[in-house]
């Protein structure tokens, strides 16, 4: 996996919002991760953990406070206005709310063609066939082109949003909770469509969602966010099989499984209390106020990234100690 080409690199990204009176909301506080070409990177966490802000800052819908976002080696936040527009040819976004993210006064054709028009692609005679092609790609009917968004159901609208994102043949799509507003049976339709498009076109996705079971289903690797920080990052299989961070463990155990026999036998880790305010986050480890295994050190020192297994990173003091022990053992063996 290490040999694979990096498409996006996020380095120590911070996004702080000033809340008047000199108080600062640290929505994203030092987040780093890489996204490889052709993979789906999932970002999960509960509301207010900064996952959407991370996604939006990555394509400069927000200006960063600090850090870097490299797309193909180029720092997105240092582009000039022209380069910025050119970037959107390669990076597109699918939004959460299919009701609010489509202009109600435009026809489907106008909505889908807008990115193409911006970039001067598929002009003239190519425009109409392209729109029809896109509609068919996302499983809609070519006759739908002249209709308005209100004539479609939520799932169909999300397909229109996907068609719009695909219109300029991007390499990278940021999908911010693309299925949260949809019914379960329709969620599966949209997720399958996204997977199929990825296989056919070699797309790279950043998939932001709060539903860990769906993220696990679609993602190759997952970052778990809590209060502006990524606390654990690993492949989706090992995240479920071997969750290390106490927050990840609690999050996994809180997800109900649609199987009564399993549910009856399960023991849950129920977290006490609620998410602290990101305006005044806890010192040291941000999770310590709800952590069932918090230690004295957690209050004073922010845990650093530890690679516990190959490509399995966690930010927790428990594993820093273990890592130290392992290294020591290794040295002693030598």
């Amino acid at each position: 996996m290490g040999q694979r080409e990096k498409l996006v690199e996020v380095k120590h990204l911070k996004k702080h919002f000033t809340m008047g009176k000199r108080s600062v909301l640290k929505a994203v506080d030092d987040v780093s991760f890489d996204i490889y070409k052709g993979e789906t990177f999932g970002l999960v966490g509960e509301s207010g953990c900064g996952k959407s802000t991370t996604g939006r800052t990555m394509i400069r819908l927000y200006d960063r406070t600090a850090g870097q976002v490299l797309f193909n080696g180029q720092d997105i936040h240092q582009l000039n206005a022209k380069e910025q527009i050119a970037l959107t040819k390669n990076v597109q976004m699918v939004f959460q709310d299919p009701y609010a993210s489509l202009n109600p006064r435009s026809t489907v054709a106008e909505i889908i063609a807008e990115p193409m028009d911006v970039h001067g692609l598929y002009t003239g005679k190519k425009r109409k066939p392209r729109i029809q092609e896109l509609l068919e790609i996302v499983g809609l009917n070519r006759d739908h082109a002249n209709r308005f968004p209100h004539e479609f159901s939520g799932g169909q609208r999300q397909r229109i949003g996907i068609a719009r994102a695909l219109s300029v043949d991007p390499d990278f799509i940021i999908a911010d909770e693309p299925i949260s507003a949809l019914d379960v049976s329709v969620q599966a339709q949209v997720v399958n469509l996204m997977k199929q498009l990825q296989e056919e076109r070699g797309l790279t996705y950043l998939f932001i969602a709060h539903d860990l079971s769906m993220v696990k289903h679609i993602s190759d690797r997952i970052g778990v966010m809590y209060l502006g920080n990524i606390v654990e990052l690993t492949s989706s299989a090992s995240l479920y099989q071997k969750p290390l961070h106490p927050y990840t463990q609690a999050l996994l155990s809180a997800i109900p499984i649609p199987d009564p026999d399993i549910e009856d036998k399960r023991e849950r880790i129920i977290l006490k209390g609620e998410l602290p305010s990101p305006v005044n986050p806890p010192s040291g480890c941000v999770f310590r106020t709800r952590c069932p295994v918090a230690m004295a050190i957690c209050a004073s020192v922010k845990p650093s990234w530890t690679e516990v297994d190959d490509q399995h990173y966690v930010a927790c003091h428990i594993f820093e100690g273990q890592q130290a022990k392992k290294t020591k053992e290794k040295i002693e063996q030598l």
Partner: protein
Amino acid sequence: MVETILEVNDLHVSFPTYGGTVKAVRGVNFTLKKGETLAIVGESGCGKTVTSESIMRLTTGDIVKGAILFNGHDLATLPEKELRKIRGSDISMIFQDPMTSLNPTITIGSQLIEGITQHTHKSKSEAKEVALEMLDLVGIANPSERLKQYPHQFSGGMRQRIMIAMSLVCNPSVLIADEPTTALDVTIQAQILELFKKIQKETGVSIILITHDLGVVAQVADRIAIMYAGKVVEIGNRQEIFYRPQHPYTRGLLRSVPRIDKEEEALIPIPGTPPDLFSPPKGCPFMARCDQAMEVCDHYYPLTSHINDHHKVDCWLQDERAKKVTFATKG
């Protein structure tokens, strides 16, 4: 035999609109037994919320037909005055959105006490005692201080706890919870579901839980009613619905949700969308999306087939006259 506390018979609810009449609930039948949790599951627009609101006659639609039997009364026809005595005391309700269902301009204490003084002869100070007790039961620390606070001073999970406390102050025998955890994060959802279980154990209240989340259902429900296009298409106990679902829609739902405990399996979505309830189909409403549809499904709504004592389904595949088909994933 466990006592039946609430019985809904052939309930029809319609909404007259500019564009025609929406037949949101089209003949719903179910019973609620004492001390059990009945989950009503379905997708948006299937009529689950309208059904639950109709039980307390809070719906803005018209109850066209049907009976809702509770303690010897028919709530569908009971005079408004009598109904007010039952609402909030014998049957109470928890709404989906804890942000909008509390009055932002009144303290939590006043909102809690109002319910008690409305329905009992307790004095204000006695009512306050009950309110304190309830806040304590739902796990709100420092209740006497919290009583003086306003809803905006509480987080979403806390507000939902207050809603639950408020619904319990009069010791109801039926609690209707409409998507009580949908607006909450999973870790908070786990806290609230745990609270429901604890309350049911301590007070013996019967719960109707409206939800679309099959995981939540597997965790807390005793019996499950699956709704589709204004009908209960399948009803049975937890084991039956999860391991021996007979309706193609129920099976479709179970297949379309990803399981965190299972390795990569392709999700099988249900194709298409639910029918338009302005003019619901004459036959089975699921027919257009069903891969096992037959000629008869187009013309007649299926008769209810009894699979066993704990399991009923409205599907022609299970009719005596159909070829024997059974589906089971376990046992």
